[in-house]
């Protein structure tokens, strides 16, 4: 029985068979005999999550546009499918060819969130591929990684042969080209890796020695060989407006999390909110022209048949041509009956024009993120949003007919006091009051204000990278404070205390020793840790204990500015000095103006060709 027959035999036994069989519109099938490099693009989560991710669509498109490369998709089989696959000896396979992942030259994982790390091991094991890089002797089955978590890849460094840092569009093609050359020459894995390490943006973790101090902090990370860079700098695409963007997406049969066309409007962020990792690691700020955006939107919808398109960026309203962009896009979307959604709006530059642009088709709720409950704490995190601006925005929204507002907050931010926590409720309450004070509020219906409170996790390459993260007990106490504040019935309060934030905090700023604990926990049955079906904190505690590692050392400890950090040899363009300056300003509740008002000297403008277009 061939693999396809075996798969067909079992998939009727599991939930949603269509997850496991491919064949979707716009999926790319090539003749493998004519291919030099086969690339298995693995998303370490379910089909529905992975198929919603934009990065995989961009890189799938770019790789498959090359004649000699075939990129296929691989997702993590859910528990029921895993059981069936093991019963029938079905190895992990790719969705286009249904060939085993172990047939592929390069196996690439995108690391979007820390809690997916065990799924990388799970997928490798299902593919029958050794988990540790050192146990994979051949060039074939090269395991590579990328995505935001690669900005501190140390916790998973021992499992990967190399990481691609920063924008993947160019470097992934260079990697495949180099691989092809070495495959042809019959090079060893070591020979290939030595050459790969010379490509800007490629980090080969096995080429570095890591030493520790007696207090368990890092002493040094040094290259083992000549020609291996001391610091690896991330890649930035040269011309963002002209960089390839898919004109078609693979259109899934089953409903996925984000089942719509997605248009990336800009990359990077001018704001510099101090808690936000994305705001620093995607710098410099670059945007696409209105002309490019309109063309890409039309192509995507025409080739997929989607009737919904979402504009994607860290802060869409910061596009310099936001108004002409929206008016051009709505002209087209109205005519084609396509609904346009704009998920990332700020409260300080939200205008009636923007609202008109998005309210054409559906009046669903609006979401804003004040992030903190008092002005002092908003200044600490450099959110640069005032209560007045929030009220102005909510007024425009209410007057425009909206009656539902969702507000995002965080607790556990540095310097936070009980007053700041209570301020979350006061802020939400003030929006409710604002609604009832409005003469021309929508009649006949009440207002609902949802306050969603997340737990802050300090991340690498941010001004808060040195901070201690709250323990679970402290988080629970702060939730009690929140609950204790009297509030209107119009306010829905959402919060959730979980050890997942603790583990996320450990992985985010972990060093190379964490890898052992990840291995132990996986071997002890931990995977799908971002799902309640999979997460079991006790297994993690056992794994850390067994390895003699202390979670609080990584997550609950304040670091001094002169400590060597596990990601100090990884350069995302934002200098450590700048982050330190920003951190000190945070302690004084001093804000930093956004990049368009004045350049704060983060360092990201030095990327050749990808120069910062924040126009400071």
């Amino acid at each position, binding site marked *: 029985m061939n693999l396809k*027959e075996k798969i*067909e*035999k*079992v*998939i*009727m*036994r599991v939930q949603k*068979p*269509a997850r496991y*069989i*491919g*064949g*979707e*519109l716009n999926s790319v099938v090539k003749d493998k005999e004519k291919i030099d490099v086969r690339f298995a693009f693995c998303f370490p989560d379910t089909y529905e999550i992975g198929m919603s991710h934009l990065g995989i669509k961009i890189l799938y498109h770019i790789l498959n546009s090359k004649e000699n490369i075939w990129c296929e998709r691989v997702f993590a089989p859910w528990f029921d499918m895993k059981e069936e696959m093991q019963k029938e000896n079905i190895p992990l396979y790719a969705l286009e060819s249904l060939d085993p992942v172990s047939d592929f030259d390069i196996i690439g994982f995108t690391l979007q969130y820390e809690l997916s790390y065990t799924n990388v091991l799970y997928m490798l094991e299902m593919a029958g591929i050794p988990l540790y890089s050192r146990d994979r002797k051949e060039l074939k089955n090269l395991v590579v990684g990328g995505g935001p978590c690669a900005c501190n890849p140390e916790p998973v460094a021992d499992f990967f042969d190399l990481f691609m840092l920063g924008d993947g569009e160019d470097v992934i093609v260079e990697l495949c080209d180099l691989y092809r050359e070495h495959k042809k020459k019959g090079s060893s894995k070591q020979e290939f890796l030595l050459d790969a390490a010379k490509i800007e943006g490629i980090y080969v973790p096995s080429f570095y020695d890591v030493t520790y101090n007696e207090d368990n902090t890092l002493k040094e990370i040094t290259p083992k060989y000549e020609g291996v860079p001391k610091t690896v700098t991330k890649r930035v695409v040269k011309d963002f407006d002209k960089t390839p963007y898919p004109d078609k997406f693979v*259109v899934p*049969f*089953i*409903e996925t999390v984000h089942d719509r066309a997605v248009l990336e409007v800009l990359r990077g962020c001018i704001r510099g909110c101090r808690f936000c990792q994305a705001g620093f690691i995607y710098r410099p700020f670059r945007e696409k022209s209105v002309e490019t955006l309109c063309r890409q939107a039309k192509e995507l*919808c*025409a*080739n*997929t*048949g*989607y*009737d919904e398109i979402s504009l994607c960026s860290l802060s869409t309203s910061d596009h310099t041509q936001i108004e002409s962009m929206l008016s051009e896009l709505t002209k087209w979307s109205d005519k084609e*009956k396509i609904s346009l959604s704009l998920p990332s709006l700020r409260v300080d530059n939200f205008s009636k024009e923007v609202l008109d642009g998005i309210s054409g088709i559906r009046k669903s709720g609006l979401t804003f993120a004040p992030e903190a409950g008092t002005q002092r704490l908003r200044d600490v995190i450099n959110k640069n949003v005032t209560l007045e601006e929030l009220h102005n925005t909510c007024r425009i929204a209410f007057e425009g007919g909206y009656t539902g507002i969702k507000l995002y907050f965080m607790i556990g931010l540095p310097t936070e006091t009980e007053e700041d926590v209570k301020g979350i409720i006061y802020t939400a309450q003030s929006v409710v009051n604002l609604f009832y004070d409005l003469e021309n509020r929508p009649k006949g219906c009440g207002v609902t204000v949802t306050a969603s409170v997340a737990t802050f996790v300090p991340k690498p390459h941010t001004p808060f990278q040195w901070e201690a993260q709250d323990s679970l007990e402290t988080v629970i106490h702060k939730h009690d404070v929140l609950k204790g504040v009297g509030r209107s019935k119009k306010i829905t309060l959402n919060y959730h205390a979980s050890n997942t934030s603790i583990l996320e905090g450990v992985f985010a700023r972990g060093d190379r020793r964490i890898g052992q604990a990840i291995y132990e926990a996986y071997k002890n049955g931990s995977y799908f840790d971002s799902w309640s079906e999979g997460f079991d904190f006790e297994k993690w505690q056992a794994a850390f204990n067994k390895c003699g590692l202390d979670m609080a050392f990584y997550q609950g400890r304040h670091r001094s500015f002169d400590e060597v950090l596990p990601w100090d040899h990884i350069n995302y363009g934002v200098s450590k000095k700048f982050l330190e300056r920003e951190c000190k300003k945070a302690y004084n509740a001093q804000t930093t103006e956004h990049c368009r008002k004045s350049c704060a000297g983060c360092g990201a403008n030095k990327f050749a060709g990808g120069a910062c277009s924040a126009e400071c």
Partner: protein
Amino acid sequence: MQNVRIFFIKRDRAKYISHLDMTRLFQRAVRRSGITMWYTEGFHPHLYMTFALPLALGTESNCESVDMRLIDDISFNEVKDRLNAVLPVGIEVIEVSEPVMKASVISSSMYLVRLYGVADKKTAMDAFLAQDEIMAIKKGKAGEKLVNIKNFVYGYEVNADGSDLCLWLKLASGNQNTLNPQLLIGVFSQQHNVSVEGAFLLRTKVLCENGEEFK
């Protein structure tokens, strides 16, 4: 505006697309094709579309149909060609025509079933299908019910083909009664301890009360 009945086949990997997902698939295909079809009016306009008969997940078909209302002044052949240019592998329009019958007159379907490697069970299958009563649990809107599904088997033929067992089945389909061939072979599989997983199931014809093919 012109009512059109679009006959299509659903083969290979496309058999794993559920009935609900077929709706979304055709909505998107119509958009990609650029053909103007009629949308329902009202607060949330959507493409008007009616499938004659649902098809069970895992079963292939040569004779599915969906009705739409064509607004563009184009030929049936053009509708067919433009849809085929944008449909995913496994789904192919074979004919577009004016609806002749109402879907409510559908009463049965013909199926071809191939059970791999169990040709030696021919006698058992013959005996199984010759019974007056085959009790099985049917899941319906009102919950689960124990019914005699033999009442919904209108005809059959059993042949051994090499190492496989081939069945021709005429089973109830439509508004009144419906029998999914997977249920029938599932009962056989249980009673005779035979694995029928990965069986090939193909709907070959949709028939009306008077025995004519649904047009």
